[in-house]
């Protein structure tokens, strides 16, 4: 068995060279440091089931402007630390007095983490063509550790979601997700996202969500019977989860898709 649920302090391995995220080494042995799913393939890592978002340079996130200060917007990025968006990081030149005309308190932005220094000062930027303020659609929040699952293998989950719901979707690494499209599509997309969040740790996720979306869309014609649901669950249990390493790579791919405008 190479995957299991662990609590902090559980013994994982005798080989400290394999220790990766979510673990710590003591007396040459590897222990888990968070509650989560431990995987022993190649490296030993524990993917947490909950926890705050810790900013990393290069992450795309969705922030909400908290304060307009002199030459900086102070942005909430759902982490223990606030983000700073300097006036020069706005795509066009604006005067300090006019800042709130462009971005005011409460506005949401898709933004990129430009730099994180040792003091946890976080610099954000909007200087990138894929980044912009959010003017329409909705933003939903999920646990940040579940973002890789939401994107899926090679961006499969998110591509499928976009396809089935006809929505634009942007996934921030901080667990904020922007959805825009027709009202019905958005409703469905939001419900699917929340379902993914609830069921990330159960295997056969993509398949289950595909079925969920199809059913929801067809629901107006045929009412489902509860018995059917039961059998479906049994089937999907058989599916194998993608390995953690894969999910990590997918994360990159998924975002790249996002950036390259692979959505319609």
């Amino acid at each position, binding site marked *: 068995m190479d*995957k299991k649920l662990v609590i*902090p302090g559980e013994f994982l391995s005798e080989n400290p060279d394999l220790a990766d995220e*979510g673990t710590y080494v003591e007396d040459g042995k590897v222990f888990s440091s968070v509650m*989560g799913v431990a995987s022993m393939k190649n490296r030993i890592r524990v993917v947490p089931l909950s926890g705050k978002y810790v900013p990393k340079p290069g992450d795309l996130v969705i922030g909400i402007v908290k304060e307009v200060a002199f030459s900086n917007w102070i942005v909430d990025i759902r982490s*223990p630390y606030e983000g700073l968006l300097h006036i020069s990081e706005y795509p066009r030149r604006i005067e300090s007095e006019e800042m709130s005309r462009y971005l005011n308190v409460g506005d949401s932005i898709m933004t990129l983490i430009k730099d994180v220094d040792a003091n946890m000062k976080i610099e954000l930027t909007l200087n990138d063509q894929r980044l912009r303020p959010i003017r329409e659609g909705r933003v939903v929040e999920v646990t940040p550790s579940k973002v890789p699952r939401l994107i899926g293998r090679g961006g499969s989950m998110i591509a499928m979601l976009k396809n089935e719901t006809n929505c634009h979707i942007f996934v921030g690494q901080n667990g904020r997700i922007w959805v825009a499209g027709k009202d019905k599509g958005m409703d469905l997309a939001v419900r699917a996202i929340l379902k993914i969040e609830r069921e990330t*740790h159960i295997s056969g996720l993509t398949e289950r969500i595909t079925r969920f979306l199809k059913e929801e869309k067809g629901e107006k014609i045929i009412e489902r019977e509860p018995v059917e649901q039961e059998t479906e669950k049994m089937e999907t249990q058989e599916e194998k989860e993608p390995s953690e390493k894969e999910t990590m790579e997918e994360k990159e791919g998924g975002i790249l898709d996002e950036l390259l405008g692979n959505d319609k």
Partner: protein
Amino acid sequence: MNKPENLIENGIRLDGRKPDELRPIKIEVGVLNRADGSCYFEFGGNKVIAAVYGPREVHPRHMQKSTSAVVRYRYNMASFSVEERKRPGPDRRSIEISKVSREALEPVIFQEYFPRSAIDIFVEVLQADAGTRTAGINAASIALADAGIPMKSLVSSCAVGKINDTLVLDLNKDEDNYGQADMPVAITKDGNITLLQMDGHLSRDEFREALEMALKGCEAIYEMQKAALMEKYPAQLEGDVIE
């Protein structure tokens, strides 16, 4: 209740327990939606709820540490938690308990992972029946794990005491009031002691034996804490079996 003649007779205590028996424990994880992590913990007649927030920004600002997180622990008893109304608000006793409980948990938290941030732990005692600080520490350590905060281990805690010259595990209210000693202990999984207090008198040998009993009690509690956390994600376990 007036002082009973004997708190223990023929190895059976007033509430029917054996000397080394814990009171029944009930644990529920994730009972609060707003908190990052939470836990409801029943320890015999004790009912406590723990909520964990963070890591989050530190307010007031001057409290923040530039190289690590600050851990703040607030132990509070509800005014209705004891028979005679407890005057609300912090008092000498609850400030002390907050401090020792915080120090019982700090060694296991990887504080240096989150510089300039705060981890806030709130423990509310809804009903008190001796041993609320141990119940609070048990609840808080589960709530910390539930919040996804990196830790070396869970912390488990229980008390030992002396009644009628007999060492007993996990005192209840009457045993605490009329007993000769009360000693709360908290340990990490590998047996490091993070809390040790003593009220009353124990001889050196009694102390050794008492500590031994407390460690056994804590181990039992650890297993229950672990089971409660695991229970929150039952589907994962099913998935495991199939894989």
